[in-house]
């Protein structure tokens, strides 16, 4: 038990001392996962909106596929991206393997389904009459769609938080395609694996605390939105 208390104490001191190794890793993590979620939004929101509002044969299957994407195992995504980016692979000429770009690509594949799946639910929770009324009042198709997304914006922010929470704590894919290179592709999760193996528990614990903090922040945000959302929607449905 003393070991644990000791490690937590040292972890706080390390974090407060502004240790450059530690903060460099934290910054790289935010960069990679933030970039992946941003790209995930660019793809996931249009895809989710389309799947949520359009009517076409096979739509149910498409939504089911997106929802399956929520359970994509990171190591399988890592394997797929590794093969794609290795020098013999179809995208090998990019030279991305073992660089942050490869990590963003892998985490993008994990984040995009989160964003898309939550967007589907979010746009469907807004009453369709809203768009019809907007059209009746002279709004264009795109203006009506923008209004619709505006109404769903809180849930869409939850999509961001959920996607971020999923990728920031993922270790399998970034370890495989990033390679845990010091100062380049070492992120919070891969560093925790390495520092624990090296017996540097305080450093590992400091990173673990930051990771917990980030996961907590993401989930607190989602919970807050879930609690707030019904109250906001009531005036619309009345």
């Amino acid at each position, binding site marked *: 038990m003393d070991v644990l208390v000791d490690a937590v104490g040292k972890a706080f001191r390390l974090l407060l001392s502004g240790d450059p190794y530690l903060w460099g890793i934290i910054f790289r993590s935010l960069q990679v996962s933030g970039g992946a979620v941003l790209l995930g939004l660019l793809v996931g929101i249009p895809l989710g909106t389309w799947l949520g509002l359009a009517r076409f044969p096979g739509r149910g299957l498409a939504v089911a596929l997106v929802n399956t994407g929520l359970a994509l195992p990171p190591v399988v995504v890592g394997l797929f991206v590794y093969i794609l980016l290795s*020098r013999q692979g179809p995208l090998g000429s990019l030279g991305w393997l073992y660089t942050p770009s490869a990590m963003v690509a892998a985490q993008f594949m994990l984040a995009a389904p989160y964003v898309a799946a939550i967007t589907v639910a979010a746009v469907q929770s807004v009453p369709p009459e809203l768009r019809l009324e907007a059209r009746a009042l002279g709004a264009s198709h795109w203006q009506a769609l923008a209004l619709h997304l505006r109404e769903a914006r809180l849930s869409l922010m939850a999509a961001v938080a959920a996607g971020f929470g999923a990728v920031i704590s993922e270790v399998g894919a970034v370890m495989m395609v990033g390679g845990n*290179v*010091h100062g380049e592709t070492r992120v919070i999760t891969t560093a925790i694996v390495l520092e624990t193996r*090296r*017996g540097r528990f305080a450093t590992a614990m400091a990173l673990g605390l930051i990771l917990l903090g980030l996961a907590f922040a993401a989930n607190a945000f989602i919970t807050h939105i879930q609690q707030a959302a019904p109250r906001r929607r009531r005036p619309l449905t009345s």
Partner: protein
Amino acid sequence: MRRILSSVIVNLIIIASASCSAEPREIVLTSTTSTEDSGLFETLAPVFSRAYPDYRVRVIAVGSGEALRLAARGDADAVLTHSPRAEEAFMAAGHGESRRPVMYNDFVIVGPTDDPADVCGFPDAPSALACIAEHHLLFISRGDDSGTHAREQELWSAAGVEPGGEWYREAGQGMGAVLMMASERRAYTLSDRGTYLSMRDRLDLEVAVEGDPRLRNQYSVIVVRDALNGDGARAFADWIASDRAQAVIGEFGVERFGRPLFTPNAAPSDPASVGR
């Protein structure tokens, strides 16, 4: 309520340990990724089981540094590593009961097939490393406190180079992962020959420097002091130094690579009290 719960737990433990006693007793052996990645243990384990049906070896393959750290914490019965300085420190700290050499192979510096530095021209490792540093050619280090990493650092200091900068990358991963990375990024790295040979088909790397006496890689087995399964650990250490096991080690790899991956050189054990 708590008393009932604890008695249930105690009973479960008794039942579990009773059912275990019929099973072979486990010897926890921490060893290096090189012995696991090369497949040596897959070959040795069944031979040991036949000789000692009462025991079963559970191998935890990690870097030499971690292997010794786990053992120092009492989480292993025996250790098989290749990091002489770290092993001597382990024995000096009183964590080991006995230590003896088992086998050796050698390290090689591998690099891209076109060898831009032409480090092949250098027969000795420090000069080759100095040349890599001078030309800022990409070098990937294990960076994980493993035996290979320790040796690499000794070679850099022999070369009089403090490695660092854009061309020097620390991977913090096992030998196999680092070789894959070196191959993908056309980089140089230090590898044990066994792991390199066992993966050669999948790598775009060739041996750039070999044969330097500083590249010799000695493996030793240590029986951990006050081990949970000390009898098992002693039996294993005696067995791996026996003629039978040494013959298996000497044959390992001949069929697949046309040459053995390890050279057996077991010597009588070096008890802690004698020390070096």
